[in-house]
């Protein structure tokens, strides 16, 4: 009996509709629309000349592996992209092409998929790494760069069925909470598919890592240029999955050339492109080549062992921190040596913890630890090459080195119960022991852990591997209270999953606040500035009830989106009465504006209504109610000067309520709310934007308010105001009124200003740790404060070398190090083409190949436009400089009559 056809599938029309239009909140987008790849034509000509495109396989010495007879054969490599045409001349082993989009074609109309496939497997002209690999093309993007999670799910299932070995994803998006997608990527690697993905093109801002490259089981690739500098576009910063309680993982995993790389053109020939979308297939191609080189030992090749080999062999770039370069630059030949003698084992990333190692271990190396401080957390990724699943045997052991003051620090662990797929985490929390309260020095020790996996085919015993993690920490005496600043991370909601709009309403093409709002992501420069000014910045990832206010001079609440527990509100009031100072930096919140900035997301096919404004002002007003302070629901924007500093107020709130004897600074600003709602420009005088107040009470602290956080936030930063934060801290932490406030500030009484109400029907409760999801406004029970159980040290009478970095090496099987053949470097028949290509590529704005019509079209358009402009320019010039009698009309009659007689 035939079953009822499924409604999901009998609506091809509905499916087609989805793809129309542009998506705003892209889950899996081809890297942010136009910025997806950076065509070299866009760069300045100087940059172009410097990054002369090079044959990528030569630079990485793939020809040596080719000379040994390895060229990818026997390895199935999949390219998930915009497709590939069947008779492209560059590909000799195209095995399969499938289309998963709603467009009825298998061909690439964009050039992206062709380029990526070329870097991996081209056999002519601009050569790829593995020309003999079985190439499987999955078309998952339309020519309009549209794609959906559901297309990916079906395509991924096919890749699993086809037993793909290596899969390249030059795609990514911010949404790591897209569970169906993230689960599917785990499923792929669990099925031994080695996933290689681009880390994203959202650099140089921190906190911009893209999914799936940010997953532990995926090889996330960042981009460098041919001068070994991290490419500006390459996404960086820690992962934000773990916020606010934990700390992010190190990503990207490795970096490789992604700027000015040559690859296959759409129809034929070669072109030059830049982007992490380019760096990813470089690694995918290298991985394919490596897998074919160890094909005699293919059972031991898996997502973890390949990643371990790449990491262990990568060459570290000097002067670049680990959140930008990961383990360093891909070294193909060394990776081959490591892989060829690889023995299944566990390893760690990073492989050591040296909190004094600058700049590699930024930001850890920028601030020493001390007794009483919030524990420093290092999030170590465990890679387990022994099996898809594994576990930590017993517990990790902390072994302080007795001769090296190991007992001056304490260490606590949290870790994955099961390491699956191929990976897990080990979070190491470090703090100074009580006896180090006045101590200054370096403490060392090591963490030892044993990982086990079930036996593999033909084995009886379970597999185990023991790894050591050296630890080295700088300890200083606890700094005075006035030098310690506490950053409230708990109330900063990280994106995703809700829509928390940008703090600057002018940034329309990037509507989401997704960088984590952490001092080590998009508030990086603020952090660095505070450190340079001598402040110690600690991060509170728990409710305000969980810190000892006597330790800190100032609590910083910047751009918070979360609600506050009633217990937090009363505790903070007590803290202030007892001497804690608070700086609150808010942002805009206006219900009408929020309704105006809703958008339709084509990807999830839902309306996205903001759950807060730039900040959650109603929640802040609840917090500040006992202080008799509040922010307004107005949205202001504009330039002004404060002291001798130029300032820009980018979509901020104003102060609506403040004690009369407080000091206020007012400015003339534009009413941006009005502008957004009614398209009317209107300036408002005496907008109170900054307030300073000494709370009443004998030992009470001080409060400073400012209405806009954009000048501290690296994303879309226009004019910074770090000086202002300095000045505010001068006031709050040191009770010293900076001259700028003395001159410009004055007591100011505020007329009746409306306070913002929470928007009806907002979904903040879905994402909130504070609100009960069922009833709006009802809070959950206050969670218990995090409690770390410090590991009992097992002292070792041992000394570690001062440089921990050199100590990472993978165990190898008893095998002679495979010789990398000392072949004279032949360049098989591509040399002359390369030099030809150079001639093409260094001409600014000229496409790499004349046949590449898609690329050249804008150039023709530009040329045509230029000619038209020149035409008119000459025309105007002519009419101005040499007025001819043909055009008397242009002149005023009076002139004709009086000044110049008409001929």
């Amino acid at each position, binding site marked *: 009996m*035939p*079953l009822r*056809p*499924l409604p*999901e*599938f009998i609506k*091809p029309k509905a499916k087609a509709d989805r793809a129309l239009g542009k998506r705003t909140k892209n*889950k899996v987008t081809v890297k942010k629309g136009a910025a997806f790849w950076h065509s070299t034509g866009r760069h300045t000509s100087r940059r172009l000349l410097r990054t002369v495109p090079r044959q990528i396989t030569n630079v990485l010495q793939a020809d040596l592996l080719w000379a040994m007879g390895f060229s990818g054969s026997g390895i199935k490599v999949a390219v998930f992209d915009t497709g590939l*045409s069947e008779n492209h001349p560059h590909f000799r082993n195209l095995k399969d092409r*499938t289309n*998963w989009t709603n467009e*009825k*074609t*298998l*061909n690439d109309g964009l050039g992206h998929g062709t380029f990526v496939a070329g870097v991996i497997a081209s056999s002519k002209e601009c050569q790829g790494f593995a020309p003999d690999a079985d190439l499987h093309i999955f078309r998952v993007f339309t020519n309009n760069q549209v794609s959906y*999670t*559901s297309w990916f*799910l*079906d395509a991924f299932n*096919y890749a*699993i*069925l*086809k037993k793909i070995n290596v899969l390249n994803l030059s795609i990514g998006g911010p*949404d790591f*909470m*897209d*569970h*169906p*997608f993230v*689960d*599917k990527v785990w*499923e792929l690697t*669990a*099925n031994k598919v080695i996933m290689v993905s681009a880390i994203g093109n959202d650099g140089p801002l921190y906190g911009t890592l893209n999914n799936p490259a940010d997953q532990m089981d995926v090889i996330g690739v960042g981009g460098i240029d041919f001068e070994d500098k991290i490419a500006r576009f390459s996404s960086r910063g820690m992962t934000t999955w773990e916020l606010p309680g934990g700390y992010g993982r190190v990503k990207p995993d490795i970096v490789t050339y992604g700027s000015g790389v040559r690859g296959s053109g759409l129809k034929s020939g070669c072109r030059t492109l830049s982007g992490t979308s380019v760096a990813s297939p470089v690694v995918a191609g290298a991985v394919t080549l490596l897998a074919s080189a160890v094909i005699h030992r293919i059972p031991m090749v898996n997502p973890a062992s390949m990643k371990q080999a790449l990491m262990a062999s990568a060459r570290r770039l000097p002067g670049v921190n680990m959140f930008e370069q990961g383990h360093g630059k891909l070294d193909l030949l060394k990776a081959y040596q490591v892989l060829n003698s690889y023995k299944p084992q566990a390893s760690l990333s990073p492989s050591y913890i040296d909190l004094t190692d600058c700049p590699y271990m930024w930001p850890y190396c920028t601030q020493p630890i001390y007794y009483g401080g919030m524990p420093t957390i290092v999030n170590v990724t465990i890679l387990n090459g022994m099996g*898809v*699943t594994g576990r930590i045997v017993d517990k990790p052991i902390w072994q302080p080195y007795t001769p090296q003051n190991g007992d001056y620090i304490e260490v606590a662990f949290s870790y994955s119960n*099961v390491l*699956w*797929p191929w990976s897990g985490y080990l979070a190491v929390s470090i703090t100074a022991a009580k006896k180090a309260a006045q101590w200054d020095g370096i403490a060392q020790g090591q963490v030892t852990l044993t990982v086990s996996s*079930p036996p593999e*085919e*033909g084995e009886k015993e379970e597999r185990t591997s023991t790894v050591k993690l050296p630890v080295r920490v700088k300890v200083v005496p606890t700094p005075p209270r006035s030098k310690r600043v506490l950053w409230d991370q708990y109330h900063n909601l990280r994106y995703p*999953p809700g829509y928390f709009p940008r703090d600057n309403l002018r940034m329309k093409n990037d509507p989401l606040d997704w960088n984590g709002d952490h001092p080590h992501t998009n508030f990086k420069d603020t952090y660095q500035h505070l450190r340079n000014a001598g402040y110690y910045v600690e991060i509170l990832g728990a409710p305000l009830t969980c810190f000892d206010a006597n330790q800190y001079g100032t609590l910083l609440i910047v751009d918070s989106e979360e609600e506050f527990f009633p217990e937090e509100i009363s505790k903070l009031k007590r803290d202030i009465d007892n001497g804690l100072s608070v700086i609150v930096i808010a942002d805009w919140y206006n219900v009408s504006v929020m309704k105006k900035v809703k958008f339709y997301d084509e*990807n*999830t*096919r839902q309306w996205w209504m903001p759950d807060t404004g730039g900040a959650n002002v109603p929640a802040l007003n609840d917090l500040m109610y006992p202080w008799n302070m509040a922010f307004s629901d107005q949205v202001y924007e504009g330039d002004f000067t404060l002291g001798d500093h130029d300032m820009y107020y980018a979509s901020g709130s104003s102060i609506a309520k403040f004690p009369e004897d407080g000091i206020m600074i007012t400015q003339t600003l534009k009413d941006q709310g009005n502008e957004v709602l009614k398209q009317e420009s209107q300036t408002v005088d005496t907008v109170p934007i900054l307030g300073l107040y000494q709370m009443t009470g004998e030992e009470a602290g001080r409060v400073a308010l400012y209405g806009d956080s954009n000048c501290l936030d690296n994303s879309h930063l226009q004019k910074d105001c770090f000086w202002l934060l300095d000045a505010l801290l001068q006031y709050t932490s040191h009770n010293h009124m900076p001259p700028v406030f003395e001159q410009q500030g004055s007591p100011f009484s505020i007329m009746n200003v409306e306070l913002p109400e929470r928007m009806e029907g907002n979904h903040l409760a879905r994402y909130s740790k504070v609100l009960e*999801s069922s009833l709006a406004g009802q809070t959950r029970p206050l969670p218990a404060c995090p409690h770390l159980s410090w590991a009992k040290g097992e002292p070792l009478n041992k000394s570690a070398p001062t440089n921990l970095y050199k100590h990472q090496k993978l165990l190898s099987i008893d095998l002679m190090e495979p010789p990398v053949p000392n072949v004279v470097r032949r360049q098989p028949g591509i040399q002359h083409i390369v030099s030809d290509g150079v001639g093409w590529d260094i001409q600014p704005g000229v496409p790499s190949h004349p046949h590449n*019509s*898609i690329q050249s*079209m804008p150039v*023709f*358009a530009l*040329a*045509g436009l230029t*000619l*038209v402009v020149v*035409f008119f320019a*000459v*025309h105007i010039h*002519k009419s101005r400089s040499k007025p001819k009698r043909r055009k008397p009309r242009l002149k005023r009659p009076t002139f004709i009559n009086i000044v110049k007689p008409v001929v």
Partner: protein
Amino acid sequence: MISRRIFRRRWFLALVLGASLLYFLVSVFKQSEQSVVKDTGDYKPPEFDFRRKISWKPRFQARNLANKTDTNCRNSVQGKEIIADERGFVCDREDILVGGCCDVTSLTTRRFTCASCQDSGCCQVYEHCVSCCLQPEKQPLLRSLLDHVPDAFRTLFASVTDHFELCLAKCRTSSQSVQHENSYRDPKAKYCYGADPPQLRPAR
């Protein structure tokens, strides 16, 4: 001087403008012809007689199930804690024998189990879905499924060769499993061997 004057002539500029416009239009036209018209020509969605292609005969007979030594099984590979083998057994990872089969003598091993599955044909655990789907009495259901293969599954099912591969593929989460693209229709029962998608639950 002569050349400069020529540049200023109106007819010359008009000529340049006309020529460039012509070139522009021609190249745009040529491009759209190339990438659109030609592309659609060579794409054919796969056509298969799905029912005939798939082998339903189990590779194993009942009597040699307990035979520990000379049996090789394909299994579900990916599991965190448990694994389903092609004979329909589900066992702990520790109980997988050399050759990939489940140890049928282990107390925790179950055959054709639908432990976490609902009547709708959707299960909470992937391995249970595979095991349940391998029940011989599920064959009519699967055969009827193959008479109406949705477009999204045509390519996938065209490459499936037997009952086990069909169950492995069918039980995976797919385009049928999601709502709003980024959440599951039913996070508690997302692996389905049956024809119906998981029951729709309101997002969060």
